[in-house]
């Protein structure tokens, strides 16, 4: 697909009745929002990511996906940061009438989804859809989602998806996969609808040389990643190390701000609360993202189960890299590195895991 074919893809998605979301630059970061046209993609930009640092830099090349990721991708589009679950009206005689506030969702497509985001999506699907209770709010959005994945050719210094086995090349869970070259994209239709959309673009077949180059770039993107998580299950080691002094050490640095849980594409914690109308005749029952770094998260009639940063960070890490294996059959980390970049003090999950996931000490 030639580079200007992207606009054709956006239009084909619009014609198919879908709203189109994609990456674009806002406030100095790449964010996913409604994408009016392919011209709004972050052309000629690299992201530079280090612990506690995120900047965008210009480059002279033609590429529109020569960056790794931004603070968010799919999670807020499916598991929304704040939404009303139901509302209740109270009649004058005190009777209560409950009404579910299920969202009306139009079909929508997201362009530029990374391999780490797809791996995280699979985990969120498992959590909200495949457990004993299906979440109807998440399901409404998920059913309408069409995914255009883009392979990563320029991982950030904070990326470690190769070590978690989730990237940099998207393997499954998308409708269309694009692999970016200077001249354009190698495009693959994975689902029936993905192939149908691609057919409407009348693309020439990619040459073997182009396919090889895409594969080489993907392999290179894996090879240049310097950070890594141990590939083994850390559950036993982490739970054997609950009293390790490293928890005190990280607690000295951690601000307990919850940035990591906000940007983590697999974190699913949320709280619920009522918002009562001023007139007193109606209330909305709202759910909102919550974080295990807050005091309220473990509040229990009069005391707090996890009163300090040490136990909260420990909860986050032992869950993400430990008990997650019991709950989901794999770790909760997909190697996107967001928690490292967006941590105000640059705490690095790979360093903490290395310190805590080894022999007990």
């Amino acid at each position, binding site marked *: 697909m030639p580079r200007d074919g992207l606009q054709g893809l956006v239009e084909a998605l619009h014609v198919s009745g879908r709203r189109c979301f994609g990456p674009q630059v806002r406030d100095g970061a790449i964010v996913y929002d409604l994408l009016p046209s392919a011209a709004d993609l972050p052309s000629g930009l690299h992201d530079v990511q280090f612990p506690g640092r995120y900047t965008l830099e210009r480059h002279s090349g033609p590429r529109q996906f020569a960056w790794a990721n931004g603070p968010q991708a799919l999670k807020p589009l499916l598991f929304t940061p704040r939404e009303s*679950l*139901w509302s*209740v009206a*109270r009649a004058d005689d*005190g*009777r*209560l*009438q*409950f009404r*579910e506030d*299920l969202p009306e969702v139009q079909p929508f497509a997201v362009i530029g989804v990374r391999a780490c985001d797809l791996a995280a999506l699979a985990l969120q699907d498992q*959590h*909200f859809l495949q*457990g*004993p*209770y*299906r*979440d*109807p*709010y998440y399901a409404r959005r998920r059913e309408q989602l069409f995914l255009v994945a883009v392979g990563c050719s320029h991982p950030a210094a904070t990326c470690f998806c190769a070590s978690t086995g989730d990237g940099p090349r998207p393997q499954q869970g998308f409708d269309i996969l694009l692999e970016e070259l200077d001249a354009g994209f190698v495009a693959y239709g994975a689902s029936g609808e993905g192939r149908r959309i691609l057919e409407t673009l009348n693309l020439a077949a990619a040459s073997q040389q182009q396919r090889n180059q895409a594969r080489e770039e993907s392999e290179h993107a894996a090879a240049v990643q310097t950070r890594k998580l141990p590939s083994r299950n850390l559950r036993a080691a982490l*739970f054997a190390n*609950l009293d390790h002094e490293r928890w005190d050490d990280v607690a000295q640095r951690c601000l307990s701000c919850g940035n990591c849980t906000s940007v983590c594409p697999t974190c*699913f*914690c*949320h*709280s*619920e*609360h*009522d918002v*009562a109308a001023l007139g*007193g005749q109606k*209330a909305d*029952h709202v*759910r909102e993202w*919550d974080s*295990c770094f807050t005091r*309220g*998260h*473990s*509040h*229990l*009639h*009069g005391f707090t*189960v*996890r*009163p*300090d940063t*040490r*136990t909260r960070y*420990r*909860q986050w890490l032992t*869950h993400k890299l430990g*008990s997650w*294996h*019991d*709950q989901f059959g794999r770790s909760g980390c997909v190697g996107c590195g967001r928690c490292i970049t967006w941590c105000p003090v640059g705490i690095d999950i790979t360093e903490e895991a290395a310190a805590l996931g080894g022999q007990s000490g």
Partner: protein
Amino acid sequence: MNAYLPLEAEVVERLQESPSIFTLRLRLTDTAAREAFRFAPGQFNMVYLYGVGEVPISIVSDPHGPDLLDHTIRALGRVTNGLSNLKAGDRVGVRGPFGRGWPLERVAGRDVVVVTGGLGCAPVVAVINYILMRRQSFGRLTIVQGVKHSQDLIWRERYTYWRGLPGVQVLIAADEGGPLWPYHVGLVTDVFDRIAFTTRTAAMLCGPEPMMLAAARLLTARGVPENDIWLSMERNMQCAVRHCGHCQFGADFVCHDGPVFSYPEVKPLLGRKGI
């Protein structure tokens, strides 16, 4: 089916149990929902107070009468203090039942030791009531509780009543006794020596985690197999449907995998601070 959506329920009766503890007897107002409602002792409902929020509350009434649902509540926070002001005829929201209850069918025919601590515990009241309603189906029932001061014992009349029933042993220990205190003065560990443990004894525990851990150790030391010891756990709950993440205890979601666990299931982390 939206498990987040409450059903309307009516307060049929409000009973004051102690200065801070009360029971709301609730009935779902929708006939079909009421007739379809089934629960097991140890399961809980999310009870919603209009405009304020929801709290998880154990169902203490008998499962053979699921049209009336008794919820014993301590007025402690915003929701429970508001619930304590309700009266007959008022409306609340209810969704449930949630979680795994006590294994009462599994321990049928056996002696049961119920151990509670702190200031009393609604989940095991469901066990006691269940066994007393089916007296022939169970062996000896022993109720054990430790309190700091004799004045801390709530439902004292209820213990007195239970104590007078055939096949029921009530063992209460207060660190400090008081006038007319008919029970033991001293450590709760002392009273365990008065229980005739057999190979058929099963134990049901409810209370603060350090107390449950201590009790589980006392029981195993007296030959009760770990698999026959059951505990009701507590954590913050928002959704009750295994989604919100607040009630995690290690890998378990207390709202769904519990609140009742067997001792071996929670033993590795029980009593560890901050889990």
